[in-house]
């Protein structure tokens, strides 16, 4: 087949050579060998040339050299396959990026329900002590007090001092020494309503005292009403809270007690709240509610609701906190900034959940030793939607940052192809200039440039790029600049091969007649090299560049794979596959790295196939 084909080609070429004198000399010079061939073919059949008249329909078959190359190229099935893959890749990377609904570094989130430990509620079953004068009411005395309370003693002595113990309410004792009040022991905790405010001893004492009195009153009322002992027992029952014990009294007229400390009058209401005028300053409760996160201040409202729920024996409740809404919004705003993007720009359903997260669901759970309750806040939190399997919204799933894989691949292809082309352009420009100059002038210039080529040939490029990459890592070079450096480095390290090729070709070309002709015409050296010599090398250059593109893309991908090439936020096929370093990804998430690898493989293969096809097309002699 090949021999036959070749003859046909020669047939086709005959008219071209007959009429092709107008074609540029340069083009013919590359196909010098074929010229000779054709001439040899021509001479014996020279007599038959007459029947090729201008209006002969076979005249139509005449092809320009370019078309001839194209024809030969398209006859090669492998090359066509390669070309179509390349076309697909370009469409995929450059147009796909435009069509894709997502941005290159657009993050996706998903909602996760997480049960976060939110607060701990402890019922205070130990006495707390507050000393008016810490000298007289030290911890040792406190221990004695406790003993006395347990024994039911009215007085005790410690360290030569006598103390009197007076019960002022349920689990509330005042300790005095020699008629002076020195301290109190209590179980109902008085906590300030606003954060970080210290309460004075007098205040606590007075508050507790009036609270106890209030409680007593209510109890009496309740006892009168129900005439049952159960209520009275309930007050001493551990699990009953002061808040609860007041509840039955609600229908009665609001029971309010007041007391005065430091000239200010406070009132105390049935829920244990201490009010100054209308404003609440503190409250009294048997339960201690502590937030797990130190920066969360639990409002009284929340605490009350919580305790109500605990008393009711329920395990779930919801609570809406206005202050939390504000907090959450600032949180998400921060989150958005951190991610380097504005908050969700399109109306994704995630948006409205930020508000609802203020209304959180809480679960109450008794801890192991039954000493306290653990409150878990069921929060829906926004997370990066990572490693999501392929679905309708994300055809190839999402990667480890929650970005759409398909879109990443498109942009990655863009970066990979662009790097390939730019590097090859740099290499070619350097190689052609230096190779052309060396080949044309010869002598010491040639020697110098060729030694330079030898040196660059010798430099191990991969390790050098690795080292530079590591250095850039250290310097925290910005990814965009890094990309440019990477291209420059790859280009500068890779021109030697092209220079060698160009020089070799030019060495043989400059001895030919057309060069003598250009010299005779007085064409300047510059245009002699770049207008007459270089165009003759172009076929080889194109083949070389096509093949080179593939290897540059592989080099870039390898670097990015090692994390030393293209960096986030830029995508590149290499840094997409980079995730495989994580064994878990390797085994579980095929969609992360297999598509990128296949694209890479196909692209490089296509470049090689096309390069091969081009070589065969430019140089049919090899194909025989």
């Amino acid at each position, binding site marked *: 087949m090949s021999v036959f084909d070749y003859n046909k080609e020669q047939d086709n070429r005959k008219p071209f050579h007959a009429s092709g004198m107008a074609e540029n000399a340069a083009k013919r010079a590359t196909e010098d060998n074929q010229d000779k061939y054709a001439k040899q073919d021509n001479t014996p059949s020279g007599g038959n040339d007459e029947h090729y008249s201008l209006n002969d329909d076979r005249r139509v078959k005449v092809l320009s050299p370019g078309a001839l190359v194209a024809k030969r190229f398209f006859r090669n099935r492998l090359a066509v396959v390669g070309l179509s893959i390349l076309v697909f890749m370009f469409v995929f990377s450059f147009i796909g990026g435009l069509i894709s609904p997502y941005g290159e570094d657009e993050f996706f989130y998903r909602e996760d329900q997480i049960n976060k430990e939110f607060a701990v509620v402890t019922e205070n079953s130990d006495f707390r002590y507050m000393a008016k004068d810490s000298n007289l009411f030290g911890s040792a005395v406190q221990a004695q007090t406790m003993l006395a309370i347990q024994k039911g003693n009215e007085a005790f002595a410690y360290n030569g001092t006598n103390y009197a113990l007076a019960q002022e309410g349920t689990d509330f004792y005042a300790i005095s020494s020699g008629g002076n009040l020195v301290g109190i022991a209590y179980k109902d905790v008085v906590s300030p309503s606003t954060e970080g405010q210290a309460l004075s001893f007098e205040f606590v004492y007075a508050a507790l005292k009036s609270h106890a009195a209030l409680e007593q009153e209510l109890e009496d009322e309740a006892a009168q009403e129900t005439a049952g002992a159960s209520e009275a027992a309930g007050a001493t029952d551990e699990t009953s809270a002061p808040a609860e014990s007041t509840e039955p009294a609600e229908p009665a007229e609001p029971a309010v007690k007041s007391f005065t400390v430091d000239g200010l009058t406070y009132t105390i209401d049935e829920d244990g709240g201490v009010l100054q005028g209308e404003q609440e300053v503190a409250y009294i409760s048997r339960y201690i509610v502590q937030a797990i996160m130190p920066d969360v201040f639990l409002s009284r409202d929340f605490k009350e609701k919580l305790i109500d729920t605990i008393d009711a024996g329920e395990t779930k409740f919801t609570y809406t906190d206005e202050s939390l809404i504000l907090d959450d919004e600032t949180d998400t705003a921060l989150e958005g900034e951190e991610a380097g993007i504005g908050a969700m720009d399109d109306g994704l359903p995630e948006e409205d959940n930020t508000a609802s997260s203020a209304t959180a669901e809480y679960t109450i759970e008794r801890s192991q030793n039954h000493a306290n309750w653990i409150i878990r806040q069921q929060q829906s939190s926004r997370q990066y939607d990572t490693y999501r399997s392929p679905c309708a919204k994300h055809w190839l799933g999402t990667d480890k940052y929650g970005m759409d894989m398909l879109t990443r691949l498109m942009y990655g292809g863009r970066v990979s192809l662009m790097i390939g082309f730019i590097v090859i352009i740099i290499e070619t420009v350097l190689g052609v200039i230096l190779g052309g100059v060396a080949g044309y002038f010869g002598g010491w210039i040639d020697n110098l440039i060729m030694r330079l080529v030898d040196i660059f040939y010798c430099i191990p490029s991969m390790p*050098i790029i*690795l*080292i530079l990459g*590591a250095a850039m890592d250290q310097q925290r070079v910005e990814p965009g600049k890094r990309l440019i450096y990477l291209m420059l480095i790859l280009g500068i390290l890779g021109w030697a091969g092209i220079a060698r090729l160009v020089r070799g070709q030019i060495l043989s070309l400059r001895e030919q007649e057309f060069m003598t002709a250009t010299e005779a015409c007085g064409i300047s050296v510059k245009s002699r090299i770049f207008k007459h010599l270089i165009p003759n090398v172009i076929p080889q250059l194109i083949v070389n560049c096509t093949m080179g593109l593939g290897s540059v893309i592989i080099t870039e991908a390898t670097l990015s794979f090692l994390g030393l090439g293209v960096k986030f936020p830029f995508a590149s096929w290499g840094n997409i596959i980079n995730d495989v370093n994580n064994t878990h990804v*390797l*085994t579980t998430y095929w969609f992360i790295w297999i598509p990128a*690898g296949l694209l890479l493989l196909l692209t490089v293969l296509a470049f090689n196939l096309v390069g091969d096809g081009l070589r065969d097309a430019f140089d049919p002699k090899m194909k025989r």
Partner: protein
Amino acid sequence: MILFFVGFIIYALMRCLPTSFIENMARQKSMQPGSKSFDDWMAQLNAMYNMDKSVIPGYLSWLGTAIRGDFGDSWFYTVPVLEKFNDCIWLSFVMGGIAFILEILIAVPLGVIAATKQYSRTDYTISVIALAGISLPTFFFASLLKLVFSVKLGWFDLFGLVSRNYNQLSAWGQVMDKANHLVLPIVTLVVISTGSLMRYTRTNMLEVLNADYIRTARAKGLSEKKVIYHHAFRNTLIPLVTIIGGSLPGLFSGALITETLFAIPGIGYISYQAMVGGDIPFSMFYLVFLSVLTLLGNLISDILYAVVDPRVRIA
């Protein structure tokens, strides 16, 4: 001469690295247990690379020590560079050697077959496979191998050279264990590098098959087998031996990517770590070493060319 300039460029490059980087590395290295103090490192660095001098005298004095075989201490491994190098080079060499032999055994016959049956289906298949081998990114292929053979089939370990129970194994078991761990890297190396040699064989074989003396041999009525294996193949061997001989020194250079992927502590992986860790003495040494290997390869192929093809010698 070339080496001198290559060395110079490498040295200049190292000098161009920001000083803070070097200081930083020295500081980090000095944090390592059993390492020298920061000042010692800096002093050593200055002494070694003559940072205080300008580039050219600095290079000359570095060259002076290096030529005597003194490359200093590795920062990353805190042992003399050459010692570390001795530890890991043979592993790389064994791995590269086995891969290289397999490569030749696969590539040359396939290339010959492809050439003799040009444009047949076999030829197309072999060509496409060869091209695919060339186009295959090492890391992607290695990952695929890992997925199939290590994860799915569980035949091999994912990383490393020895198993966890290495110390309990008998001497023979230890050898087999290492061999087991080398299978995947070697397969990777072979598949990646076979393609180009195969294509090279095919091209050269085609060229030879088109030569006049083959036509003469056929015209003589020799059997096709004799024509191909006696007349054609022996002539194809000339460029083959040249290129194979030229790549012999390359066996020592180690396979940087493959070794890194499989965490095989050969010269490639070791120097990768050194380079990423900013270990300048080791990197310098490795770079110079690689340049020497390249030059050596060129030299060997030139010599072999003359040895194999007497025409070159006469001309």
